[in-house]
């Protein structure tokens, strides 16, 4: 397990956390996101520290992915401000944002590899978009190095459809680091993978953070992964931050929703709904006459 951030803070949602810290790679100030009448993020404020691994946890639909997509301005906030290295980015045009986004790497939940391109072409894609390639031998070497970093050297000519889910995520990770980003954002990197492949991804996240010194933000609901990689864990619930601190702090957090989430327990309210929804009786099966 990684060294823990000694600074432990609690956030009850509307309270700001470390917003004044100017050394943060990302700063989010009173971020609100609404989809119609549904408020997904409610006045969230936080600062992501440079060179650290921050993990955002929370139940499905709590707004984790929406939050991480705001950090790269794939979504625009309904209200609030987003800063990258003290530059406000949520008001920039798409063309201006494109100059900022080359400092990021983003790993999508499903990998989002371009299925019409080979593995090598996928990794080359960001490089071709931003640099004039003069020496193809150097580029081939670069692709080889990036693939070796995720343990997939030799897969250059494969297509995404020929790779397993774990391999696709590793290729997507190689593409995310193609431009040597300062920050890597991971959206559910271990979802849909078996425990061994999920641990490979965890080790890769740690390795990249160690070797490249990047700022890492991971959105996950996999607590094994969160405990393993996090310097700091933030928990979202109903669009607000309800817990913020290192792994030890989260383990001992008094908030019932935090304990329920980290222990994977169903709440009494949910159990009551299940009980009220009826019992399995013969009436729910087809009559015998219908069987043949």
């Amino acid at each position: 397990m990684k060294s823990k951030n000694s600074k432990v803070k609690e956030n009850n949602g509307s309270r700001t956390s470390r917003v004044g810290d100017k050394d943060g790679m990302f700063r989010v100030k009173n971020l609100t996101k609404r989809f119609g009448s549904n408020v997904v993020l409610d006045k969230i404020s936080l600062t992501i520290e440079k060179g650290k691994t921050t993990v955002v946890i929370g139940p499905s639909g709590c707004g984790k992915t929406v939050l991480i997509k705001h950090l790269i301005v794939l979504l625009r906030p309904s209200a609030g401000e987003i800063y990258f290295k003290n530059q406000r980015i949520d008001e920039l045009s798409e063309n201006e944002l494109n100059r900022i986004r080359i400092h990021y790497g983003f790993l999508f939940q499903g990998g989002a590899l371009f299925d019409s391109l080979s593995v090598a072409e996928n990794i080359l894609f960001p490089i071709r978009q931003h640099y004039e390639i003069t020496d193809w031998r150097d580029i081939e070497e670069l692709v080889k190095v990036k693939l070796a970093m995720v343990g997939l050297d030799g897969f250059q000519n494969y297509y995404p459809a020929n790779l397993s889910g774990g391999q696709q995520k590793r290729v997507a990770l190689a593409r995310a680091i193609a431009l040597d980003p300062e920050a890597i954002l991971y959206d559910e990197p271990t979802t849909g993978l078996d425990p061994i492949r999920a641990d490979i991804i965890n080790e890769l996240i740690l390795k990249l953070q160690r070797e490249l010194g990047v700022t890492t933000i991971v959105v996950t609901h996999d607590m094994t992964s969160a405990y393993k990689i996090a310097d700091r864990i933030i928990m979202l619930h109903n669009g607000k931050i309800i817990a913020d601190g290192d792994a030890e702090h989260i383990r001992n957090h008094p908030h019932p929703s935090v304990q329920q989430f980290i222990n994977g327990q169903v709440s009494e309210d949910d159990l009551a709904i299940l009980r009220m929804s009826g019992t399995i009786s013969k009436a729910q099966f087809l009559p015998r006459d219908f069987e043949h």
Partner: protein
Amino acid sequence: MVKNNANMVDVVKIPNVIYIYLIRYILEPDIMIDVVGTKTIAGVSNSGRFARFVWQTITASTWSCARSRTYPLIWTQMLIIGVRSVPVIMITGAFVGMILAVQAYDQLRAMGLEERLGVLINISVVKELGPVLAALMLAGRVGGALTAELGTMNVTEQIDAVRSIGTNPLRYLVAPRVLACLLLTPFLIIYADLMGIVGGYIVSVLLKGINSQAYWSFSASGVELWDVAVGVIKGLFFGGAIAVISCYKGFTCREGAHGVGQACTEAFVASFISILALDYALAVIFKAIYFTFWPIRSLVG
């Protein structure tokens, strides 16, 4: 309660549903105002989004034309959209000419005008039916494929991935497709026209026994270069409309297989109507241009 009743009746017979909703709207006019208002706002907002998309596509396409780095992307799309559509467009054109010949022959023969069949077939093919039917065929073949491809990329976050890499998806994905469609549709229309003329000739001369010399001489006297040019220029507009509508539907499609399927259907229907509406508008405009400039042409000639 009313809603539940409506759902229940929905399964049994449709007229009752209409009746229930009518009663509901009469008794509660605020619901009707709400529905009409919501649909109007959605329509205006969709039109605005589409207009913005068209403008951004025009700027992205202009940018792509000026960058030689994007040319390989355009060549690839030209191969997929243009070259691979040639067989189906030629078949469409040939059948248009053949059907016209079969249908018109008896009418003209009854009046003793069968030798003028060539002019009827060829002017219909090059001016209207060739361009319109070729464009409709393209809307089905190319438009559907564009929407399905971009729609799938949208729901699998590949378009977001392009944005996250710092690339404008309109420049990378839309501009090459629009330019390929815009530039190659006129050429495909020429193929359709040629095959329409050949198809008409085969049925008229070889099957119906019309004198070949008379067939061509009447055709030459009735079909002008202007008529051919009008048909080909229409192709530019049809190609642009098909590509922009299909790409827009792909970019805005909803998640899931149903979303992609629905986007394809909407793209085809919208392209179909646009082609017919554009054809009408262009026919009026070109007619006005023709009659304005015809006297000048005779003076020069």
